[in-house]
């Protein structure tokens, strides 16, 4: 079987009389209105999802910030309380009534020696 006879047999399979053996089919494919709508809906959903994700994430950060601020306030309050305690422990009234002070002896008037 020659190459030309092979072609002829193949053409015979789907060609009829007075019909062009070669048909041209457009390669360009277009989407219909339904597909477009579905794609738009899907895209809108995706965008919505992204928006929700970002909003949730931002709010979660907000929660973290709030929690840290609360912690900072508590620590500041603790610091203030410690500072108050420290100042109270060093107060002159406390020192005056301390055991160490009770053991001190009174001073006499001082003089300075000149060379």
């Amino acid at each position, binding site marked *: 079987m020659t190459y030309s006879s092979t072609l002829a047999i193949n053409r015979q399979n789907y060609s009829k009389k007075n019909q062009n053996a070669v048909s041209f089919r457009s390669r360009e494919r277009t989407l219909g209105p339904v597909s477009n709508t579905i794609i738009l809906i899907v895209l809108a959903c995706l965008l919505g999802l992204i928006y929700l994700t970002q909003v949730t994430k931002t709010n979660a950060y907000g*929660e973290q910030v709030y929690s840290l601020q609360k912690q900072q306030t508590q620590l500041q*309050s603790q610091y203030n*309380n410690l500072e*108050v305690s420290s*100042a109270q422990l*060093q107060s002159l009234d406390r020192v005056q009534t301390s055991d160490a002070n009770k053991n001190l002896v009174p001073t006499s*008037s001082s003089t300075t020696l*000149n060379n």
Partner: protein
Amino acid sequence: MPMKNSNHEFNLKALGKVNLIFFFVIVFIGLFIVRLFYVQVIKYSYYKHSALIGQLEQAKIPATRGLIEAHQGNQIMPIVLNQELFTIYADPSLIKNPSTSSSKIAAILGSPSNSYEKLLSTKHSRYIILAKKITQDQSDKIIALKLPGIGSIGQDYRTYPQGDLAGQLLGFVNENGKGTYGIEQYLNKELSGTPGYLKAITDVNGVPLASSKGNIDVPPVDGSNTVLTIDIAMQKQVQDIIKKVATDVKSPLVSAVIMDPNSGAIKAMANYPSYNPAEYSKVTDSNLFNNAAVSNPIEVGSIMKVLTTTSALDQKVIKQDTKYNDPGSWLIDGFRIKNVEEDGGAGVRSMEDLLNLSLNTGATWLLMQMGNGQINKQARQAWYDYETKHFRLGQDTGIEQGYEAKGVFPQPNIAYQSDEQQNLNYANTTFGQAMTASALQMDSALSSIINGGTYYKPHLLDGTIDKSGNVTYKKPIVVSNNVVSNSTTSNIIPLLQQVVKGHYQMGFKYLNFPSNYVVGGKTGTAQIANPNGGYQDHLFNGTYIGFVGGDKPQYAIAIFVTTPTVPGYAGSYAAQPIFGSIAHMLIDESYVRPIGQ
């Protein structure tokens, strides 16, 4: 074609049903749209408002009030701090067993077990305060009990670790958070800071939603932390000294001021009686809130002679070694100005005698010298200029204190008074009567006399502290630098030293100071005006102004003792002992650098 007809009828019926369903769907959607339009457009404001009530958080964020610190040797220590204290409240309608709840709370707060039972059984209110100003630890323990209807809320309060130290100088912060009296009042704006503001949409837990548009979060600007010029230990000792003397001499009011004459910085300022600012609500006499050293001007008595002598020296109408014939009394406008009996009668007197014996006739003679030998308009004007323009009496010093009083110094030319009347008034002012001044004003005037003639604005605010703890000190403010000349200062200092030595020789043995320190001063015993005219016979105020130093005066001291009960002159027996104790304290505790160091 029956089949075709039947199909057609079927199609029409089906189409009718579809249309009907479609119609209902459209109607249904239409109803939704109408309803949505109603809810979202017509009732927009109502629903927005309703939603915001639950979600919108708006709050003023209070700024933390600035701390007040003071010097303790080389250190700076807080004397006024903020502490979060708690209020325990209850909703009695939720309390099931008032007795049990009361005993549990009382056990933590250290009160009798039934202290709160009556309050917890209250029927007419749903908010009862059980305890105020309790510590965080106590609050936490009470909350941990999980008693239904019991809660706590925190609030910043001023706390004073040094107790009543400098109470009147500091003032207090009232229930509305406003500084009242003292430095708290004067520096209220700087100490308060600026509150912040929060406006945000919040979630169900009240946490602001970060993604929400239009959130406003303006953080508060905390108040400035300030450092005062006072020395804590010196202040404490001055308080102790005046308390002891006030008790000994039964004085209802004693004031003392210690100033650095070379900067105007107040190192100590105290009154007795005083109060603890932490317990200001327990004070029953509101006069106790006043810092009398600043707000209570009195007729100062003979300490004024220091200013009279200085003025005459500075005007060069006398010299340090000038002597004059003292007649023992002067008759002015029908009134006789005389001295106390112990000072003797007429005679030749020196400037040293004038100050040491505290001669009223001598002070009057000095005024005469300002008017070319007689008291006249020229003398009055010259004396007035020195008192008000040089020594700045009769006007505010500008110290950082609430309710400063100016005192009074009479005008030199009053239209409705005769010349003779005014001459008499002015003669009285030369020895501290017919005028008033505060202890602070007299101390400031003395400072300008002994420091070479510079009037520094007396101040309590030494500087501010930033968040990192760095202190920015304020420079002293020079109000005037030509109060008196250097030579006047050089002349008056030895005269005042001589007064102290003279009093020591008179028997006031506590005025024995080491020779390598310079100590000078002058007593004053002032008559007290009678509300019905004239002066009271048996009541006097004691005053003292003096200085302590080495190569130059380092501390200027003013003491006012109101109506003491003493066997002698109020100046010598009530005010002078306070000066003596303070001067010894300053020397003994090395606050003063001796001569040559």
